[in-house]
């Protein structure tokens, strides 16, 4: 089976999450490996979230804001 990485993304509600919405509106196709968690601000992303995600088996974590 092909390697299917699991990617967790923490996205700021005001910019990156909106950007992900816009990608949808523009029908920009990308691989379905990402699971987005919406946060009120990139400042909300506790470094421990990243560690926890990796510890739970995420192959990568994207933070954006």
């Amino acid at each position: 089976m092909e390697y299917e990485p699991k990617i967790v993304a923490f996205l700021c509600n005001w910019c990156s999450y909106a950007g992900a919405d816009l990608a949808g509106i523009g029908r920009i196709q990308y691989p379905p490996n990402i699971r987005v968690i919406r946060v009120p601000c990139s400042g909300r992303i506790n470094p421990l979230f990243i560690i926890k995600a990796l510890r739970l088996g995420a192959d990568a974590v994207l933070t954006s804001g």
Partner: protein
Amino acid sequence: MLQMSEKPAKVGAVLVVGSGIAGIQASLDLAESGYYVYLVEKNSAIGGIMPALDKTFPTNDCSMCILSPKLVDCGRHLNVNTITNTEVLDIQGEPGNFKVTLKQKARYVDPTKCTGCGSCSEQCPVKVPDEFNQRLNNRKAIYKLYAQAFPNAYAIDPTKCLRMKKPKACGKCLQACQAGAIDHTMTDQIMEIEVGSVILCPGFEKFDSSQLAYYGYGKHPNVVTSMEFERLLSASGPFGGHLQRPSDGKEPHKIAWIQCVGSRNCRIDRGYCSSVCCMYAIKEAEIAKEHSPYPLETAIFFMDMRTYGKDFEQYYHKAEHEVGVRFIRSRVYEIVEAGDGSGNCRIRYADDAGNITYEDFDLAVLSIGLDPPADMIELAGKLGIKLNKYNFCQSAPLTGVGTNRPGIFVAGAFSSPRDIPETVMQASAAAADSAAGLAEVRSTLTKIKEYPSEIDVAGEIVRTGVFVCHCGINIGSVVNVPSVAEYARTLPTVVFATDNLYTCSQDTSAQIKDAIREHNLNRVIVASCSPRTHEPMFQETLKEAGLNPNLFEMTNIRDQCSWVHMHEPEKATEKAKDLVKMAVYRAALLEPISSVSLDMNHDALVIGGGVSGMTSAVNLSKQGYKVFLVEKADVLGGTANRIRYGMNGEDIPAFVSNLINQVTTDEKITVYTGVEISDVHGFVGNFETTISSGEVLKHGVTIIATGADEYKPTEYLYGQNDRVITLLEMEALLAEVDNKVRDAKNIVFIQCVGSREPERPYCSRICCTKSIKQALLVKEANPEANVYVLYRDIRTYAFYEELYTEARRKGIIFIRYELDNKPVVEAADNGLKVTVTDHVLGIPIEIEADLVALASAVMSPRENNSKLSQFYKVPLNQDGFFLEAHMKLRPVDFGTDGVFMCGLAHGPKNLEENVNQAKAAVGRACTVLAKNTITVEGKSAFVNKNKCTGCGECENVCPAKAVQVDPEQRVAVVNDALCKGCGACASSCRCGAINIKGCTNQQLVAMLDAL
């Protein structure tokens, strides 16, 4: 019977015409201040020009990113009635009581039914050039103006729709629309509304550059307008943000901008400066360079670089010296095809020294000017609104926002070309002035929604209901929606799960409420589109069903799933299931959040008794609020006491004394002179400010209007020779027609004294216009005198350009000098000798001057400002002026709630602009003062006292200054009124002692656990 002659009661509603950023801002300010707003827009969606811009100067923020929260706020506001596709036909009546006739054109789509899914547009066979994208690509005959448009609904272009022409010809959209929103039989409607005042903010039109054949627009495919270039840069533009020539798709390596296309040109009746083009050209050049993965050459052909706004000069400096944009001072004669088969543009121009030469570019961008809105000419005629000779609105002198017709106000580019922050400022000012006349009917027409009392879910077993949306075919055609709903049923806590065609439709909303009742749901999850657009709507449904809105969780399986994985239905379905699982896990930990209410003091403190402060005080008093006006000096008036002539010839001493009179006789205003601020406690709604007399003032809001100083030059013999004076000193000589002026043979004005230099890198904005105004007064008093203006760039923006034109016509001599070769002023027998190197001749010229006037900088009183900055926890910029919350959209606000600013404290501005900003500060302050209590959503930080060590990390990182460590108890304490819920504290807290309601560590980790 007694005859009662009563004036008809005023109407507590306001009409706002035009829904660009000015209309949106004015509407929001008014609606938040207790007035019902009719926001009328001729297009099918609100937003105006801003959505079409890529980035905005000087912060290079994405235009749409900063606008969209305001779009959503405005669109969803209970007290803003947005009426699209509509024009104003007539306005009758008097201030306080206008009757307005509106004509709403048929949209052919019912916006209450349309979900904005776009299926209709996909099926529509008719392609139409997309105006939003400057006709660079096509849209369909059924279309949404732009992706993030509000209303999020489609509209039919009746001139292009096949079915409108021939009912049997088409109808594909009807089949595609599963919401039944389309109706080709709709007709135009005439409506009448009653309002108390009117704000006109119809914006501007683009100058049509095909009028100037020599630039080759329309003939040469690689000459584009600046608006077209914005769309070329934009990620949502015709080429997805890939920078290419629209003609042949080639990536340009060399781009030129041509300034003043349709501006500063008397021959085509555009004798004004469009004010914004210099900055947007620099921005476009910068962003283009950022965009291209290869080195991109950029050049801007200009006459005077007019970067006069706050931080603009620094932006220009950076573009030239760090980004590497080339600035060519020149006159462009024509743009022709290079003729070598490259399709390149050959720009023929005369350089600074007058040499005619040419250079080839891959692409030429015309920095087109701002024209007045054509359709306002007729309406203005009908309404009796006076326009100026260019058909912009002729605003009433020194009002900032007044028209000649009382009760009708103006904001934005219709009053004169201006940029976004000035437009926003003026919109808030117009809101303040239009509300000032309606204070007695405030909150008479605004609506408040009532909800059933909340069901107590504490201690209940979690019972989750899941609603999965097909969104017509938008989700359902990719994701197997029924299987997602079925999967949801297997998840812990889920007692009910279903799928809906459109979860957002009215009938589904009723179904959700029924399900809540029937299944005793205490958590609700919707898997559909973006929470950014739909979460508030679903939360509303919960409130109507008696559930706390924070027991709701939404997950996005459309924009971030079906739409972006269209060719992988199985994986998309798996992802949708995962997303639902994450939502379910998180929802189980959600708790009700109650909003927090705090008392509100309705008095205002205005610091500074100059024109700005007094204008604020007077306007606040008109709105019915008590004001404390604190002035450091012993007299009111500030810098304006030294100004005699307005930029348009107004009598300033009369204006100032009238203002002082108003302030001192107004019962609601308490004036304190000769006192300073010595201590400040509290926060929005509850400030306690101690003044140096020892008195403690309690107030709800603060307006900082502390003004600025005139720079005392150390150069050009100032202070050593009494023939060298500053502009403010010149003002006095002119008023007295002093001998120094009357007998002078030669008078020299020197510009940029202490401005645009390393020590003070900003432009002082007002000096060019003021100098020219004074030069003209000199000519009036002493026509024989030779008047010289030594300058670096003449920055007579907007209609002040006419003064510059007049000055040249009257023989005032303008000589440009370079920063590295400044004029030299020396004492000579019977006068002064000024030596300056002429930029055309390149040789030094000696002027025997009798009087030298120095345009000295506007300088921030740094010490005073930094004291206030600490007291009110508000920042200063590097030049010592107060720094606003956002340079573009919050020009009078601070990040700290309840504190506002205006006037020279914010940065250099002329008197009229200060009046404007002073009213704007009031407009913003009233949104706070109008509230009975300070109510916050409650999604704020909270502290676990057992874990908190009081280390202060949260206090340090909090951008809202909402957390402080209690020194006694040694624990952090959150001020709910100030907390924005960003969570920076929770992420920084090593001890895990601080968390965010509705977004706790546990809730977020639960989502990870679900993976």
